[in-house]
């Protein structure tokens, strides 16, 4: 009797078993965790090869098949998200080894929570069932809250509680939406959604699910919980939360837009407007932020807004192409923001504080971490040849082609704002005239800089591979074939 494994099953079950093992054996947690991440990455590569060779793949769990059972499905987009998750996750884990080395208890709980989080996220990317998505986002929510409050400070706990409320409320709105879908269709799989005729209950369902997910994504004006939660968590947790966790809910929005009889022009404009609000408001708040990590957190709010602008950039007709710009921005933000949070954490560790105003007084200059921060900023601002540049470029190209100049203007404004707020930090890195003590310019190099630096370099370098990346995420035609 030989067990027949599918890479999709492995991508979900490996982290689950890893979490169990890491919880039972706290002393060996870190080695279990790293091994699990390596194995999961392997499974994702296997899956990517399958998808590359055969196109979208499907697995009916239990052999029942949708709508009674639950199907797993992987196409280009899901594999891209899985790859983002496991690659970024692997590097963040390596960084966590160093940054948690003095905190035994934090380390003990970091691994099971993070592996449970990975289980939930991989589950989301492979799911094709609305209720299953609800359960998965709850797995993510509980593990993410656990990670947010890992360091146990008062601020982190307060932020974590707000995050918890927002998370539960978001999930419950989603569940209510699932209820309305069931009332209308009598089934909950994606295939049933496709081609459903629009009715009052379906509109209610869509609205509920969208608002619920927007709460989890922290889309303006529902972003209130995000800055504090991401800024006060410990650095590797912030990197995971900002780089990966919000992407899971974003991905669900993309999928819903794909299968539901979604967009009327007005709705897309509304989504774009919320995005524009996030870009502007997030940018302004980042300009005003006093602490480095808070600035980075606010920039997440702005960047998420940009992804929604990308989604709405060319209206209803352009949706078959627009989602690609959004997907590129999601990937770019995931990699760059994880790098940036890790770098910010390193800078804070070395200098001892992260008050932006006083960064240029510090005699210690963690050069490599600062360099990493700058590279990540390049991708987030959208300078060539970074992946962020490609994403922004395809956003504006589509908007211009469709004649939607207002979205171009919003994107430009957002870019200028991001230049402004990141240069606040970068100038502080480069100024030495306010330092009292002798400057130890090359102090604070550490092996711990390797992981964030790799991520930042990837954020830049992936821009050069944008074309194959784009053709890969098109496998399975998530939004149909472009006209």
């Amino acid at each position, binding site marked *: 009797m030989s067990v027949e494994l599918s890479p999709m099953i492995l991508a979900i079950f490996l982290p689950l078993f890893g979490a169990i093992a890491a919880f039972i054996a706290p002393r060996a947690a870190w080695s279990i965790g790293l091994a699990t991440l390596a194995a999961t990455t392997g499974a994702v590569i296997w899956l990517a090869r399958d998808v590359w060779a055969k196109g979208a793949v499907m697995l009916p769990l239990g052999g029942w098949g949708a709508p*009674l059972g639950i199907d797993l499905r992987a196409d280009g987009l899901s594999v891209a998200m899985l790859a983002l998750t496991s690659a970024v996750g692997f590097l963040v884990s390596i960084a966590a080894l160093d940054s948690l080395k003095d905190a035994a208890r934090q380390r003990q709980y970091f691994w099971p929570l993070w592996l449970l989080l990975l289980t939930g996220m991989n589950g989301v990317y492979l799911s094709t069932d609305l209720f299953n998505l609800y359960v998965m986002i709850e797995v993510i929510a509980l593990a993410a*809250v656990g990670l947010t409050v890992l360091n146990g400070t008062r601020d982190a706990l307060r932020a974590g509680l707000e995050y918890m*409320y927002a998370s539960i409320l978001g999930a419950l709105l989603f569940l*209510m939406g*699932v209820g309305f879908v069931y*009332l209308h269709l009598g089934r909950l799989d994606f295939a049933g959604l496709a081609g459903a005729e629009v009715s009052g209950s379906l509109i209610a369902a869509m609205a509920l699910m969208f608002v619920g997910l927007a709460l989890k994504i922290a889309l303006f004006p529902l972003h209130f919980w995000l800055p504090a939660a991401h800024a006060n968590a410990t650095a590797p947790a912030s990197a995971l939360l900002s780089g990966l966790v919000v992407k899971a809910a974003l991905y669900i929005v993309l999928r819903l837009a794909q299968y539901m009889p979604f967009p009327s022009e007005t709705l897309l404009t509304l989504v774009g407007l919320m995005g524009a609000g996030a870009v502007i408001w997030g940018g302004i708040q980042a300009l005003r932020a006093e602490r480095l990590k808070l600035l980075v957190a606010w920039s997440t709010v702005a960047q998420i807004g940009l992804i929604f602008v990308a989604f709405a950039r060319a209206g209803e007709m352009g949706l078959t192409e627009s989602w690609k710009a959004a997907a590129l921005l999601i990937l770019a933000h995931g990699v760059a923001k994880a790098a940036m949070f890790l770098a910010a954490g390193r800078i804070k560790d070395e200098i001892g504080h992260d008050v932006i105003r006083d960064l240029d007084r510090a005699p210690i200059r963690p050069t490599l971490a600062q360099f990493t921060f700058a590279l990540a900023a390049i991708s987030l601002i959208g300078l060539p040849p970074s992946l962020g540049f490609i994403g922004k470029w395809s956003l504006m190209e589509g908007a211009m082609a469709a004649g939607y100049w207002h979205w171009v203007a919003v994107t430009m404004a957002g870019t200028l704002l991001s230049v402004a707020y990141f240069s606040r930090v970068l100038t502080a890195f480069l100024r030495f005239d306010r330092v009292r003590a002798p400057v130890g310019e090359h102090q604070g190099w550490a092996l711990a800089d390797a992981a964030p630096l790799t991520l930042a370099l990837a954020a830049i370098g992936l821009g050069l591979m944008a074309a194959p990346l784009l053709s890969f995420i098109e496998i399975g035609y998530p939004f149909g074939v472009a006209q």
Partner: protein
Amino acid sequence: MTPDLIYGLCGVAVFGIGLVGALCAQDRLRRVLALKLCSVGAGFLLVVGAWRTPPATPDPVPHALVITGIVVMVSATAVALALIRRLQSLEADDER
């Protein structure tokens, strides 16, 4: 007036009341409770959707989903309450 109509509206109302509480409640404990009310409202909607006029038996799938939802909600509640306990302990220490 059939039971599904009555309880369906009841469920929507409970959800709405929970929503008001989740947005307005000041007290941390009360907000948790308000969220739990929302989940009961959502449960009502699914159970009502499963109801078929007797003698037909109801659809078991939504029933299973609601049971899952109840267990998920108790887990989330427990985590939220643990956060509240820890936070309140720390804040009480500050005051002393």
